[in-house]
């Protein structure tokens, strides 16, 4: 992940599209970008991972943080468009049941 995530406003929240491998080289910056959005308390936050070929547990930690912040405020967090390897780490970390995971941005918007 060498670029900042792309932030798009939604009627009821925000869509954050990340691009590139997510590992410990970028999670500090990514955490910062996502916290900035969390602070605005969006009713719905969608994290689009379609352009993320790879993620390790330091990336998962950032998502878990976001999930906890949103859940605590009774707001929604969804992730969508996971590539196979990223699906793999969700399964290995047994987080595929914890997160709301969708196949498309549209499905995540409606849920």
């Amino acid at each position, binding site marked *: 992940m060498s670029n900042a995530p792309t932030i798009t406003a939604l009627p009821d929240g925000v869509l954050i599209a990340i691009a590139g491998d997510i590992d*410990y080289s970028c999670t500090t910056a990514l955490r910062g970008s996502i916290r900035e959005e969390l602070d605005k308390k969006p009713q719905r936050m969608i994290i689009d991972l379609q352009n993320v070929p790879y993620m390790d547990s330091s990336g998962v930690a950032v998502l878990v943080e976001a999930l906890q912040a949103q859940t605590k405020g009774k707001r929604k967090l969804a992730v969508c468009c996971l590539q196979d390897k990223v699906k793999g780490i969700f399964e290995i970390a047994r987080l595929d049941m914890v997160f709301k995971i969708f196949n498309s941005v549209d499905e995540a918007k409606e849920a």
Partner: protein
Amino acid sequence: MIFDANEYHVQMRVISQPQYLCVIRSVINVIGGKCGLSSTETDHVVLAVDEAVTNVIRHGYKDEPDKEVDISIRPINDKDGQGIEIILDDQCADIKIEQIQKRDLSELKPGGLGIHILYRIMDHVQYDQRPDAQGIRLTLRKFHKQQQD
């Protein structure tokens, strides 16, 4: 280097900066298949090694960017099967291996997944104080399983 190249065919010394994690991943990614792993097995080992090196950088070296991580790789082909052995050596002389602990996964919290992932993916995970007592040695092994192809 630490080992005989005839056994450990590829050895690397990488500075303790996360920007080079992707270099290490690409090496494991290319070598996995040569060691007889399936592509899914290779993907998993890539993740495991990434987690282990990240831990050395974060916890061992506390993000100091001027330390070294040594990675030694050998193909395994013996009675235990076909697979890969990866040895990580650091120079964290003040770390005791007892500090390196899996966390309980029942509670959801950010972090604490790395060691868990290591043990889930690899067939063999062993932390030792390095013989020369200058740091930690992590030995990882993964064998190819027929049914996973």
